[in-house]
């Protein structure tokens, strides 16, 4: 057992920072043109983890561990350092798979079955291995999935630190959003006041929301550029802005990073130079999670088949308006909407709505095929398979289903996944 967050900080200092610098010093062909963007987004990610590490040692501050179903702005309003735990496994899958195996094994040895989602097993394993940050508290909603709903009560017992559960509605109308917003007001704010021993200051919240609105506008602009053919920016760069938003919305560092990406993408569109290193032949909607352990997959798809993942069903369709900062109620309603309708929280949608949402993205980004991953820990996306297939047949959409574990390359190694993708693009899509 090491010290809390020790391995995370080691990776930030020993790998992420040097990698960000490496991109600037030795831009890797054929992506030289995007080097500063890669560097900026890696540094933004590293900054986020460093802020968490700093808050751990600061008696005046707290680390806010939160889940999908929430966004960071309320935590910034109380000067906390937020960490979205759902993203935490991918920090390690991209940098050190041995840590991932270790945490998964720790959770299983403690009694969590191997068929529970690897994200939740990882988080429980990280807690058992003392890697989660201390000086922390948890806030989670009951969305999005079964795995979340079992992992957090177990974490609560393991860590014995303050935890707040919010009741996430599994509907998506205004009434449902207001229901959730009322809980943010009556439960989250008093909880944060109690934990941080700081009174709620509406102006601090407004500052964070205004900051996140700026970042959000950039995010929408970035996504809009992906509707252009060919789409600007290579593979992973298209996915990363959205994930960064969920982790850092409300922090000026994120706004600055997204502005850089946005200015670059918009500039390319204006100047008619969106063509990247590889010719765009196919536009792919990636449905559900991509493999986090194969960073090169998207670039490989572009290089070998001209297949550009231009959007992702969980993270590339900006469907929201900026948050209205008129009053506390309007801000909380906007925060509720963002928390519930972004990323994995979309999985609470009923199947018809979930498919409609994906089809909307498919049409909006002018895709010509879908890759649907069946993460073996996700009962929800796997259970939607039949209806997705039916809709795709009806609309004549070529679709590839890949069964894998998005955090664990032992379930489907990268080579075997690439074989399936290769067969798809060299047969169905030829």
């Amino acid at each position: 057992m090491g010290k809390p967050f020790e391995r995370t900080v080691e990776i930030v200092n020993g790998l992420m920072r040097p990698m960000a610098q490496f991109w600037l010093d030795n831009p890797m062909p054929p992506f030289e043109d995007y080097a500063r963007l890669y560097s900026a987004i890696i540094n933004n990610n590293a900054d986020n983890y460093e802020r968490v590490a700093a808050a751990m040692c600061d008696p005046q501050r707290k680390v806010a561990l939160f889940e999908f179903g929430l966004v960071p702005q309320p935590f910034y309003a109380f000067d906390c350092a937020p960490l979205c735990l759902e993203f935490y496994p991918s920090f390690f899958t991209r940098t050190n798979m041995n840590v991932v195996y270790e945490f998964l094994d720790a959770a299983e040895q403690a009694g969590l079955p191997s068929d529970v989602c690897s994200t939740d097993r990882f988080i429980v394993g990280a807690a058992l291995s003392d890697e989660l940050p201390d000086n922390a508290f948890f806030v989670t909603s009951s969305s999005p999935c079964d795995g979340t709903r079992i992992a957090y009560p177990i974490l609560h017992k393991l860590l014995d630190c303050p935890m707040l559960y919010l009741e996430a509605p599994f509907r998506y109308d205004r009434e449902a959003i207001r229901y959730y917003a009322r809980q943010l007001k009556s439960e989250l704010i008093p909880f944060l006041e109690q934990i941080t021993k700081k009174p709620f200051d509406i102006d601090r919240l407004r500052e964070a929301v205004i900051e996140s609105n700026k970042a959000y506008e950039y995010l929408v602009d970035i996504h809009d550029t992906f509707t252009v053919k060919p789409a600007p920016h290579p593979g992973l760069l298209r996915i990363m802005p959205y994930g960064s938003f969920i982790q850092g919305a409300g922090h000026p560092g994120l706004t600055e990073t997204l502005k850089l990406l946005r200015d670059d993408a918009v500039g390319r569109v204006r100047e008619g130079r969106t063509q990247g290193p590889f010719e765009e032949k196919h536009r792919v909607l990636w449905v559900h999670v991509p493999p986090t352990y194969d960073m090169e997959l998207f670039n490989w798809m572009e290089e070998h088949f001209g297949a550009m993942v231009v959007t992702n069903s969980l993270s590339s369709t900006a469907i929201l308006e900026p948050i209205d900062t008129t009053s506390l109620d309007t801000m909380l309603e906007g925060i509720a909407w963002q928390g519930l309708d972004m990323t994995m929280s979309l999985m609470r949608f009923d199947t018809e709505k979930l498919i409609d949402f994906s089809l909307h993205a498919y049409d909006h980004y002018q895709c010509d095929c879908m890759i649907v991953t069946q993460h073996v820990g996700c009962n929800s996306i796997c259970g939607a398979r039949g209806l997705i297939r039916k809709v795709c047949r009806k609309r004549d959409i070529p679709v590839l289903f890949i069964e894998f574990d998005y955090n664990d390359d032992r379930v489907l190694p990268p080579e075997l996944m690439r074989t399936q993708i290769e067969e798809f693009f060299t047969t169905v899509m030829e």
Partner: protein
Amino acid sequence: MEDLRYFAEMASELNNAEIQAWKRAGKRVIGTVCSNIPEELIYAAGILPIRLRAPRLQDTSSADSLLHRINCSYTRSVLELLLRGELGFLDGIVTTNTCDHMLRLAGELQAEARMPFIHYFSMYHALGKAADEWFVLEMEKLKGSLEQAFSMKISDDDVRRAIFVYNRTRRLMGQLNEFRKADPPPLSGTEYFQIVLAGMSTPREQFNDRLEALLPLIQSRRAGGAVQSRLMVVGGGCDAPEFIEFIERKGARIVTDGLCFGMRHYSGTIDENDANPLHAIALRYTNRAACPAIINGFPQSYGILSKLIREWGVQGVICARLKFCDHWAGARKLLAEELRKDGLPLLDLEREYSTTSSGQMSTRIQAFLEMLKSQA
């Protein structure tokens, strides 16, 4: 026992003789998929709510092609029944989203069922004041949906009458359960579960009358010698009396449970004097032992289970959870830790919905019972 045969027969088929008679009388039947769906409201509409089960179904290959092998076998079995046309006697289904399996089953039922009424009842997943509020909102939606689909009005008095009938069932079931405290209990766990399932599959007034008549007979029944071990069974999707019988044949007696096809279905009564009957119904659902799908429900649930364990003299607990059920996987872990503190052993049996016996389960149950015996 002759009087118990009726309950066994009603439990053995989904579309049993009572349901067929009800239908012949021109009345409607609605299937529900989860004990979190407030049946009282359906009954208030003059419609018979029955909990969907798939007795003895072994092959789910058609459903497997729509759902996924990692979806639990209960949801695949219900879908299989629908695809085979075996739910054709239903006038509707109320689906829900208790867990991700149920959520996706709801999608398939909505797409595949050709029935006049398919309603999606959106469940809460965290206890608290918000959940009570949400439950009432959802009941109002269900009520409106029933009224629209069947061109009727459900008055507060209708709801109160249904509450009265359901409360009577729960009180009678409570009395039956009290008998199981005796050593030996006058009825086996298998017999008890047959009664439990019959209650979910027959018109309630009729069931109540039958049960009321049965109680004195059970009370005066002379049971055999003391049983070796008194067990509790918990878990999800466990509705086969054959499975309970399989355990009891080894010398144990199931004296209480924490099943949604059992204690959770019948526990607690509804305040009949509440000015808002929907609010009263909501409180009964949120105050009973929480389903493991409720993110913060374990402390409440364990409080109730531990009381049952003490009062019914339980010596060991069997957790019969369905494969791929994350919620019961988590609850089992939390439960095992609490039981360990209380010095009570737990046997974790992962099973498929249709599995009522197997060589491996037999060996494990036998070993568990021997361990209990050696501890006695």
